[in-house]
């Protein structure tokens, strides 16, 4: 008897509690967003480009949103583990994270199961060209001389690139080979080894983003000879464009911010507006200047278009150059 009474009593309390919590969550939904800390996930490890991007943004977003924005790293699968963590997080807008061109390019090689349609884009804040660099004391004065040398000695000139088969650098070399310029690609998986290669005289030339090797350019250890872009690079205006030599292939790297697909539209709007203000702040300007990656910030629609377009381009070139894609 007393047990039943007890159960009845507790059921009552639980019911009241449930009712209260439902009411509370209802009012919470109507409350302003955000009202608690936001997680921002870098999809590469500490120290990498994506990590620097996220850690530069976090305090600026905190200021804009009025809540703490806490950075962390989820690494693996060419950055797709981090993308997966963000895109499959609870769609409440409290988890955002970075995505980069290399993660998107790696979809073609079988990394990651999610595609652009499976996530929401908040904005894009960094775009960078790639360049070819030679050791500062290289006998080659300019890109014209290099092209002449490569044409005369096909497959002889050693070129250091990242070890991503079918990646932007690999595709660019394959494209140049179809035009009669065949280098000898040496893939270096670790950036550190790649940078050491021209410094130690183990390769003749290197494919890299200027922001990543700025210290070597400043120290006059390497110099850029060409930029893969139809426009001059604002940070290195003296470097000739690849289009000056009659080529029309240029794959840029970029870093953008995503969140889960089903985050309510009003929250996405709050996030993208805050991100837009962070991107145009003097602090971020200083950061992107240092890494030679400043660009006009893109809104969510333009970011999606940019990324889908990039993916399409990569796919087209992969097909063209016979790279088996695992879609």
């Amino acid at each position, binding site marked *: 008897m007393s047990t039943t009474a007890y159960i009845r009593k507790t059921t009552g309390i639980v019911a009241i509690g449930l009712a209260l919590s439902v009411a509370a969550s209802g009012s919470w939904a109507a409350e302003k967003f955000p009202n608690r800390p936001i997680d921002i996930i870098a999809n590469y490890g500490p*120290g990498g480009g994506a990590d620097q991007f996220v*850690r530069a943004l976090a305090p600026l977003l905190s200021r804009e949103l009025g809540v703490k924005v806490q950075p962390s790293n989820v690494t693996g699968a060419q950055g797709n583990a981090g993308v997966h963590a963000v895109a499959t997080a609870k769609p409440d807008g409290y988890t955002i994270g970075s995505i980069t061109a290399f993660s998107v390019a790696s979809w073609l090689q079988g990394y990651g199961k999610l595609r652009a349609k499976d996530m929401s884009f908040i904005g894009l804040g960094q775009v960078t060209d790639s360049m070819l660099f030679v050791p500062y004391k290289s006998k080659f004065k300019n890109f014209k001389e290099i092209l002449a040398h490569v044409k005369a000695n096909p497959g002889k000139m050693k070129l250091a690139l990242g070890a991503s088969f079918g990646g932007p650098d690999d595709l660019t070399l394959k494209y140049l080979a179809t035009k009669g310029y065949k280098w000898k690609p040496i893939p*270096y*998986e670790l950036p550190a080894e790649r940078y050491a290669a021209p410094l130690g005289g183990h390769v003749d030339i290197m494919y890299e983003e200027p922001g990543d090797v700025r210290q070597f350019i400043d120290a006059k250890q390497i110099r850029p000879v060409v930029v893969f872009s139809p426009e001059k690079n604002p940070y290195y205006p003296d470097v000739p464009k690849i289009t000056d030599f009659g080529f029309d292939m240029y794959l840029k790297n970029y870093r953008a911010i995503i969140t889960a697909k089903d985050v309510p539209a009003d929250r996405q709007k709050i996030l993208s507006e805050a991100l837009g203000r962070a991107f145009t702040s003097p602090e971020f300007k200083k950061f992107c200047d240092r890494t030679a990656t400043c660009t006009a910030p893109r809104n969510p629609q333009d970011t999606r278009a940019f990324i889908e377009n990039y993916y399409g381009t990569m796919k087209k070139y992969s097909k063209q150059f016979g790279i088996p894609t695992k879609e």
Partner: protein
Amino acid sequence: MDIIPNLIAGMGNLFQVTNFAFLLVGSFIGIVAGAMPGIAFVNAMALGLPFAYFMTPVSAMLFLTGIYVGGIFGGSISSVLLNIPGSPGSLPATWDGYPMTKQGRSAKALGIAITCSAIGGMVSALLMIFFAPPFAQFALTFDQPEFFAATFLGLVTVISIAKGNMLPALLSLFAGLIIATIGIDYFYAMPRLTFGWEVLDSRVSFVVAMIGMFAVGEVLFTLTQHLKIGHRNLDRHTQLPSLKELWKLKGTIARGSGLGCMIGVIPGAGGLVGAIIAYGVEKQVSPRGDKFGTGVEEGLAAPETAKNATTGAATIPMLTLGIPGSAATAIMMAALMLKGVNPGPILFVSGKELVYTVFAGYLVANLLIVVMGLPIARGFSLIMKVPPAILYSMIIVLAVIGAFAVRNNIADVYICLFFGVLSYFMKRFNIPTTPMVLGIILGPLAERFYLTSLASYDTALIFFTRPKSGVIMALAIAFLLWSLWPSIMQLGRTIRNRIGGAA
């Protein structure tokens, strides 16, 4: 030569209250994190990075230096006391350090670990202070063939670890090499042995495998065997070796320091490879080599010296060239870049104050190992008094946290537990686990260096025709013959006897 005045200025800078406090706190965190089974000090450095954001570049670097130097030593505390390496580099410390504990000589073992780590670290700090720029230039002359040769030397040393029974050790090593191929290969982006399981695409992290094999595996094995981890009658005091005892180890320490400094510059190798090669070489050189594995001082001193000697050497390319060769130095470089400081040759001109303060930091952090290592080791000895049920659960919890922290991925926890069970069965069937871990660590390096060498030089002869890699390969082959010599002689004798008997 303005090195001495610069260093004195650096010392002055270091001993400013905040700077020194950060080095002190960093060293403490490093030693404790290193000593906890499962928690690698690199995790502690990665966790420390966001804090570095709020410090001055000098304080941030000293803080991380402290964690790095302290952490690479700290792992040996649990190696010696629990037979569980707290950090990868401390794995060889279990081979002779733990037997010493079982003999009731843990105080002496810890003393040797502390002293030799400190000496190795200081030698490498001095190398950094006086020869950083020329050493960096020397390091630049190493290309992929040299890295492959050094990795090959590392693989060969596994023979010295195989105590007598070669076949199970080789079996374990090759199984490790196969596990190392799991994932999407970086050369042609082909998935290997992933069985469509996405989690395996990004390969098996050796840290995760190691935590599983040594922490989880050790607990499982001990539980089922009704044994106890560690030794109950521990001497709580750590006994630093006397000068006379140290003098006896002078050759060991010199070789360990030299090898550690050399291996430190190889990207991706780090403290563990340095320590293993030092152990293998010492086993061949030492008159007591045949007793290694039973609690021999030299067998503990060599790897302990070498692993801390890799710290300065690994930092030189990062500071002088802006090329980080290990996860730890990459995190330090990230801290500098977050603060807008670009490492590289210019730093030696424009950031002299920072550079020399960091140099001073390395020197002093290694001294702090001695000062702080003693009480922390004593604290850990007390843990041994904790009832086994609590101690084992604690180790498992730390292992799970540590495995998760590697990539913030729950799949790594399952992989870690899988390796724990695997290691249990290997122990049951007397198959050594260390060669497998070596295979998992060195396999991807060997494959990468080998393939890149071929891409660059077209022929496998390059490993012998390039002078530096040729020397290392010759060393590896001499090493192989040397360790196999008794078996070869034995075989020869057997054959001769057979023929003799037949005639």
